[in-house]
C-alpha cells in the first residue's frame, strides 16, 4: 500500500493541530461514493484485485487523495451498474463525496474528479444446459 501521508494540518484557535492521514480521507470518500445507487464499486485496478483475492480488504482502493494546507483534491475510480445514467451517477458521486468529506473533516474539497472505469452487469441465472456430447 502506498505511504500514508499525514499532510493535512488544521490549527483551530491555536489550541493545537488536527491532522488527517490521507488514507482517512480516502476511506470516507470511497464510502460516500459507494453509497450512491448506480455505483457498483470502486475500481482499484489489477493490483487491488489480486490483493483482495489473497484476502486483504482494501478500503482505500480507487481513491486518490491529495491534501494541501487547507484543502483536498480527490480522484475516484468507480465502476457503475449497467443501465444507470452514467453522467448522473458520476455527478451525484462528486456531490456526495464533496459534501461528506467537508462535513466529516472540515476540509475544503477543491476538486472531485470521477473516472468511470467499468460497467457491472447483473449476473443472469444460467439455465442448466444438457450436455449434447457424450
Amino acid at each position: 500500500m502506498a505511504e500514508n501521508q499525514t499532510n493535512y494540518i488544521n490549527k483551530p484557535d491555536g489550541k493545537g493541530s488536527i491532522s488527517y492521514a490521507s488514507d482517512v480521507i480516502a476511506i470516507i470518500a470511497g464510502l460516500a461514493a459507494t453509497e450512491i445507487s448506480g455505483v457498483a464499486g470502486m475500481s482499484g485496478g489489477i493490483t487491488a484485485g489480486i490483493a483482495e483475492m489473497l484476502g486483504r480488504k482494501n478500503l482505500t482502493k480507487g481513491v486518490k487523495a491529495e491534501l494541501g494546507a487547507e484543502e483536498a483534491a480527490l480522484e475516484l475510480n468507480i465502476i457503475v451498474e449497467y443501465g444507470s445514467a452514467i453522467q448522473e451517477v458520476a455527478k451525484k458521486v462528486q456531490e456526495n463525496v464533496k459534501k461528506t468529506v467537508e462535513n466529516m473533516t472540515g476540509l475544503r474539497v477543491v476538486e472531485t474528479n470521477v473516472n468511470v472505469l467499468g460497467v457491472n452487469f447483473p449476473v443472469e441465472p444460467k439455465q442448466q444446459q444438457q450436455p449434447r456430447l457424450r
Partner: protein
Amino acid sequence: MKATERVLVVFFALIMIVVSVGMVLSAWNMITPNDVADFMETVNGNILFAVLATVIALMLFLYSIRVMFVSTKKPTLSAALIKVSETGSIRISIDTVNTLAVKFARGVENVRDVRINTLMAEQGVDVYIRAAMTPDANVPEVSQNLQNAIKTGIEEHTGLFVKNVPVYVDNSVDTSK
C-alpha cells in the same frame, strides 16, 4: 494511433521485411558480393537514389527515436474521455463505452454478433462497428437501427457525444474477445 504514427509503423515494418529478406538471401549465398558491387556501382552517383536513401534513412531515424521515447512514458489510464464541471471532471474509460456499445448493439434485431472498436474523436467518440447479421436481415435497415441504437444508447447513458458510427457488415465476425 495517430495517422502519422501509423504510416511510420507500416514503413518501418516494410524496411524490416526488406532487411530480413536480404539477410537470408545473403546468408544462403543467393546474393553474391558481386551482385552487391554491381548494385552499388549503378546506384553510386545516381541522384534519385541518393535522395530516396536519405529520405528513408531520415524516417527510420525519426521513428527509432520516437520508439525509444514512447517506451519510457508512463502508461496512461487506458484512454479516458472528459466532461468537466465546476465540482471536478468526470471521465469515462474507452473500455466502458465500448462494453456499453456492444451491449446495445447485441440488442438490435437481426444482429447476430458484433465487434466494436471505440476511438476518441474531438468532442466525443467514434464507434466503429463490425457486425454479422442474420441471413434474413435487410442490411441497410438493420445498419441504420444499429447506428441509432448505439448513438442514442451511449449519449443517453453516458452523456458522451457520439460523432460517427461507421458500420461494416461482415458475416464472418468472430467475437473471440
